[in-house]
């Protein structure tokens, strides 16, 4: 009797939440998968099933390929900057836990991760500005000719990577700090008694022991890199917001196909590509973790 009451409570309390969850998560995810197989155009009445045609078209679509290439470069660029920097910073911050500035170190690195994205991006936009920005002025001191940071197709990617890395760094440092705090102190004590220098124990103990964390942070950084949009929207649109000047990233291409060209099915197939990328990255993470778990 009591048992039954408990289950009635559980069912009644959980049902509305699961209903919401299904409506705002499961259903749209299913829709994305379904629409990607249809020629689903807002303007036309006919929305026929076309199998994998959308994906076939994507392969030859120069705009999509540009978007995919740019996004991949950004994601891996951010990764390459963020991981080594974060690992080093976390090691130093952890080493100086007793310093009276310890909370300043954490806060200053972490703050860019939490502040609103658009104002932060605007600050960087000013820094990179070709005419008014301090970056060109600074380079001018060293005799470097001013560059059109945000207009050059290669440099604008660099700018986006710098902005994204500046934001991603705080999260990575924080997760690494948790990792450092969980490392077994006895192991380091033993290494020290055996005559290992601090540098050696960093290379041969910390880095291997933190591998699961490195893996996790790498995947999170890559996934958020593949979803980059706001940063490109702010940095790489000129003062009139001319769309031609935007750095084409996946989400931008998706939104344009859906809301400017009204090709929702086609945009959904791009979303599926994004989903596959994320799934593959996660799968790689789990596989590598499983290999490691025997040892750590």
């Amino acid at each position: 009797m009591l048992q039954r009451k408990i289950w009635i409570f559980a069912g009644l309390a959980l049902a509305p939440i699961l209903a919401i969850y299904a409506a705002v998560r499961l259903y749209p995810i299913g829709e994305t998968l379904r629409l990607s197989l249809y020629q689903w155009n807002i303007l036309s009445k006919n929305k026929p099933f076309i199998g994998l045609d959308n994906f076939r078209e994507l392969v030859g679509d120069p705009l999509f390929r540009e978007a995919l290439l740019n996004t991949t470069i950004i994601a891996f660029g951010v990764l390459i900057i963020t991981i080594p920097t974060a690992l080093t910073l976390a090691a130093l911050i952890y080493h100086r836990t007793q310093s009276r500035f310890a909370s300043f170190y954490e806060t200053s690195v972490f703050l860019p991760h939490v502040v609103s994205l658009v104002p932060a991006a605007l600050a960087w936009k000013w820094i990179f500005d070709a005419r008014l920005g301090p970056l060109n002025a600074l380079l001018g001191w060293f005799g470097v000719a001013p560059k059109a940071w945000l207009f050059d197709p290669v440099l604008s990617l660099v700018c986006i990577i710098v902005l994204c890395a500046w934001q991603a760094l705080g999260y990575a440092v924080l997760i690494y700090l948790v990792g450092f705090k969980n490392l077994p102190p006895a192991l380091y004590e033993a290494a020290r008694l055996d005559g290992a220098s601090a540098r050696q124990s960093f290379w041969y103990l910390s880095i291997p022991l933190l591998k699961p964390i490195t893996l996790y942070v790498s995947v999170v950084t890559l996934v958020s890199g593949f979803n980059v949009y706001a940063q490109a929207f702010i940095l790489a649109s000129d003062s009139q917001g001319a769309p031609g000047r935007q750095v084409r990233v996946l989400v931008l291409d998706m939104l344009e196909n859906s809301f400017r060209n009204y090709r929702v099915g086609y945009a959904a197939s791009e979303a599926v590509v994004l989903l596959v990328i994320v799934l593959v990255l996660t799968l790689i993470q789990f596989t590598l973790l499983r290999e490691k778990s025997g040892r750590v």
Partner: protein
Amino acid sequence: MTMTPHHTDDVVGDPSRLLKVRLTNLAIDAFLIAFGLAMLLPLVFLVANAFKTPQEILLWPPTVVPHDPTLENFKSVLSETPLLIWIWNSLLFACLSTASITATSAISGYILGKFPSKILTVVFAVILATAIIPFEVYMIPLYFQVKALGALNSVGGLLVGYLVMSFGIFLIRQNVIHSIPDELLEAARIDGAGEFWVFFYVVLPLLRGPLAALGVLAFFQAWTAFTWPLIVSSSKTSYTIEVGLALFQTGFTVDVGRLSAASAVVLIPSVTLFVFLRRHFVQGVASTGLKE
């Protein structure tokens, strides 16, 4: 050089080594302070620029403290744009999203954690699996759902995307399993407590810490949301502050001073809030790393 913070105390008795350790630590401190300041510099310039005259913004090297601080930029931004309405929209959206996410996570996390059954295990597995799917993947169908509800251009429409958080459900479930003993719930039930009473007076108080962390996380997530509000809001008065600012900066006549002023209006309260809630926030974010 790096490693456990306990080392430094052990080298007493060897003055030259002690000196070396001290100097290394000093160098590390200097580096970390310089790095931290460099990280903050873009934000500092942004706030400084907000108080500068157009002439001073062009000065090289840029000044950190304006010579001749002015409120002109703020005045003209506030009169030209519905900045306060945008802030209100963002605030309302973020608060409602926080309320919804903490409530749904608390209830479902508790039930998924303390009511063992095969069905619920499957339910939890599904939630966990969808947690890795980024919002961008399904936002377009979600947009059409909101459109069908006639909720475009409203806070309600914004909210649809931010009602639940898979990670929040996961986080609360973890905490329920680890910090709420079954015996406690049984004892309350034997004493005749109803299920609602157990949830409100036994479970919820024990979840205060993780719920606070989750709440702060949810608030900042909604406050800084960009892509979803950008597609859901298309009328000027329904923008959130992020979208408003982003579209404002593409205008013809916008200069750095006014743009910085508008940004500073957004930045200063969120930075202040962060400094106050830092502990909760760090806790919440740190727990995202414990997934595996």
